[in-house]
């Protein structure tokens, strides 16, 4: 019960009013899935190797500050990036655009009386009317790749989208640099995010996978294996790759540092990587917020923003 999500008031209610205790679990899984036994009877307990596991769960001021800066920047970069993407909603590989053969394209075409929005990836085409290609309020729908609710600003303005994107990029660059520098200097990154040897034992890996699949995650202890890999992947791979692929698209940066484009295989490949990286970030943020909801969301939110109280109730 301890690791179930506490919806305010639900825990206090007498179980018999709600039937079995599990019924209050908001993300209830089929009974069969919940009974999965961890292979070899392995029990998930706090990792003894990380004695400061609890401390790792209590983010310090640097983590909270840089997390806020990175989160706010990404929150602005994603929709303003989609606004920029809408100016030319097609992706290519290599150095230049071969306009007749994008690997991905969003568009709209007349289909009888109505307009149809489509997403084409490789040779496959999907009807995305109302969301991608063709969207808007009834009677005022328009041809646009991503819909108004997903772009910053909502109306079409490449100039405004660029203003926001290029300003917010500074927030991400500075926030991520500060996070990585303070995290490496204080050893916090290595302690709380680099997987321990014990975690990488095949049995422990399987147990961690099973725990995630069944959403039965241990409450105590530091970050588990999948969490560590996800956070580490975003912090040292995806976000830096977003910055480098973004810089690669700058003609001035490319002139001075052509490697920024070359490591992706050309400017248009870098633009594709930038878009795919943004998709990965959206997936990560979705999972990140979902996991937050699963376990004491308000206390976690407080811990990452204002800071947690030293003594717990």
């Amino acid at each position, binding site marked *: 019960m301890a690791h179930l999500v506490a919806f305010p008031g639900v825990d206090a209610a007498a179980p018999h009013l709600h039937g079995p205790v599990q019924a209050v679990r908001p993300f209830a899984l089929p009974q069969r899935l919940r009974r999965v036994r961890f292979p070899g009877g392995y029990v998930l307990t706090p990792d003894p190797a990380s004695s400061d596991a609890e401390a790792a769960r209590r983010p310090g001021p640097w983590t909270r500050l840089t997390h806020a800066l990175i989160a706010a920047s990404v929150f602005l970069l994603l929709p303003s990036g989609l606004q*920029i*993407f809408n*100016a*030319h909603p*097609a992706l*290519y590989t290599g*150095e*230049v*655009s*071969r*306009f*007749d053969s994008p690997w991905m394209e969003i568009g709209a075409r007349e289909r009888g009386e109505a307009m149809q929005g489509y997403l084409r990836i490789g040779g496959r085409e999907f009807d995305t009317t109302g969301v991608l290609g063709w969207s808007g*309020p009834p009677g005022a729908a328009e041809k646009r790749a991503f819909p*108004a*609710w997903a772009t*910053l*600003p*909502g*109306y079409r*303005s*490449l*100039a*405004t989208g*660029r*203003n*926001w994107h*290029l*300003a917010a*990029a*500074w927030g991400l660059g500075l926030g991520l640099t500060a996070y990585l520098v303070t995290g490496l200097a204080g050893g916090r990154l290595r302690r709380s995010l680099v997987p321990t040897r014990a975690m990488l034992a095949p049995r422990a890996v399987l147990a961690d996978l099973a725990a995630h699949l069944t959403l039965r995650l241990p409450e105590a202890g530091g970050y588990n294996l999948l969490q560590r890999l996800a956070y580490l992947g975003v912090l040292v791979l995806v976000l830096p790759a977003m910055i480098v692929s973004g810089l690669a*698209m*700058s*003609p*001035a*940066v*490319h*002139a*001075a540092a*052509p490697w920024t484009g070359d490591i992706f295989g050309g*400017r*248009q490949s870098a*633009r594709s990587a930038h878009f795919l990286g943004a998709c990965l970030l959206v997936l990560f943020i979705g999972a990140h917020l979902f996991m937050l909801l699963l376990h004491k969301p308000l206390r976690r939110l407080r811990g990452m923003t204002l800071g947690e109280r030293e003594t717990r109730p």
Partner: protein
Amino acid sequence: MTASRRTWLRGLAAAGVAALVSACDRIAGDPAVRAGLRGAERLNLGLHRVLFDRRTLAREYPDSAISPDFRANGSIDPADPAYRALAAGGFADYRLVVDGLVERPLSLDLAALRALPSRSQVTRHDCVEGWSAIARWTGARLAPVLDQAGLKPEARFLVFHCFDTLDPEAGEDGRYYESIDLVDALHPQTLLAYEMNGAPLSVAHGAPVRLRVERQLGYKHAKYIRRIEAVADYSHISGGKGGFWEDRGYEWYAGI
């Protein structure tokens, strides 16, 4: 839940989202907010000038990399009568004027321009929309042209006045123009290009003369150049932001 209540709730949710989007848009598009965001542009320009060698060349490609489908953007067939008349005569009467803060104003016809020190380069053109294309550009290097005219010490920018009206509803302010500073003006790859891929520049790509200012985005590469004016400051010209697109919210420094 009844169907009518569901419809009502759905309407409420849609109205809520619409209100949120429009509130965001008001903030996002507010001129003062956007002016604040443009602080990043000064930061980028400053950083690029400090970090990168001013003479750094944009990458040049082999002829095999030339794009078969180089797209033309902005004006592609100017309707302006003065331009139409020149085009009808094969640009025989074309004169490129160089004036403003110069010691010796110039008026060059195409033969004179072709007689000046030239350069040919295969470079990548990056449109602000996101696409790229490669072409060979041949033209007079801008630096020797400026030497010939003799820039006065107070000259800090070059303004490129163009033949084409891109926004007819804006009247005189709908005329295309651009500006660059002297760092870009004196860069060895900055050309007054009159040939593309070995042939005279086509009308769609800016005949008879367009600017090549490698290391910046496509909208800085003014097409249909009529006059180059050396100025100390461009705030008195058209919308005052240094270019047609700059007057419409785009960055003056388009190196990123």
